[in-house]
């Protein structure tokens, strides 16, 4: 996400975001990632969803926590995110520790922020899907 968003990079990002896998749900347990559910790409699984749960500290949940922190910053939240839920299509709802929630897309955030967040969610789904592939071997 270092490059400036232009019409071309936005188009490329949007196209990449349209392909599965997508994030379906993340649940946090205090400051740890408890579970990640994705909608896998068809070449990985025909299942509608796949869930990873994390009992102990491993590299993946820590990396996902880092991306969650970036999303928290991008959306201007003062409280940590406790859950992210896919609403269908390119819509997501973010729940914060103080009970507040935000659903995107919304006029309250810019298109640039929206795309950045979608890209971060995409990155999480790709990491989780890669873990499924490793686990399946």
């Amino acid at each position, binding site marked *: 996400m270092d490059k400036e968003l232009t019409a071309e990079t936005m188009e490329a990002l949007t196209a990449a975001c349209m392909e599965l896998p997508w994030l379906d749900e993340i649940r946090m347990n205090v400051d740890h990632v408890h*579970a990640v559910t994705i909608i896998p790409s068809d070449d990985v699984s025909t299942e509608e969803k796949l869930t990873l749960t994390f009992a102990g500290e491993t590299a993946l949940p820590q990396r996902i926590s880092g991306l969650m922190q970036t999303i928290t910053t991008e959306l201007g939240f003062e409280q940590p995110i406790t859950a992210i839920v896919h609403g269908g299509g390119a819509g997501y709802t973010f729940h914060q520790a103080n009970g507040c929630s935000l659903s995107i897309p919304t006029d309250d955030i810019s298109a640039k922020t929206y795309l950045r967040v979608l890209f971060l969610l995409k990155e999480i789904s790709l990491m989780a899907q890669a873990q499924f592939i490793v686990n399946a071997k």
Partner: protein
Amino acid sequence: MSTNDLYDVPDGQTLVVLGTGIEIVRRRKHEPIHIDGLDQQQLASRTGKKSGSKFLPGTRLDQIVSYTEAILTENNAALNTSGTYTQTFADHVGIASGVRVRTITVLFDGRYAHAFPVAP
């Protein structure tokens, strides 16, 4: 919580906490949609993986909770033990990728659970 109150629960938040401590959460993307007037391609798109399979029109939120609880109970789901449970019914329960289906899957991550129709 009354049936009407369930509809006040935000997407992704807890609808019901079972005696086991398991929380059944709301997932609006699997709730019924209006399908009148949709052609097959539109129906397939709106009930596909990206939009989410849907319970049949007319299915109430309390019925989705009942389905979820029944499947969790049938499988002896316990707190802190994740699982994916599937149950097939005699009648159609939902639409997945444009096809009417009789099967429901419950995803349970050890604390939170939600249900959605799937092709068998």
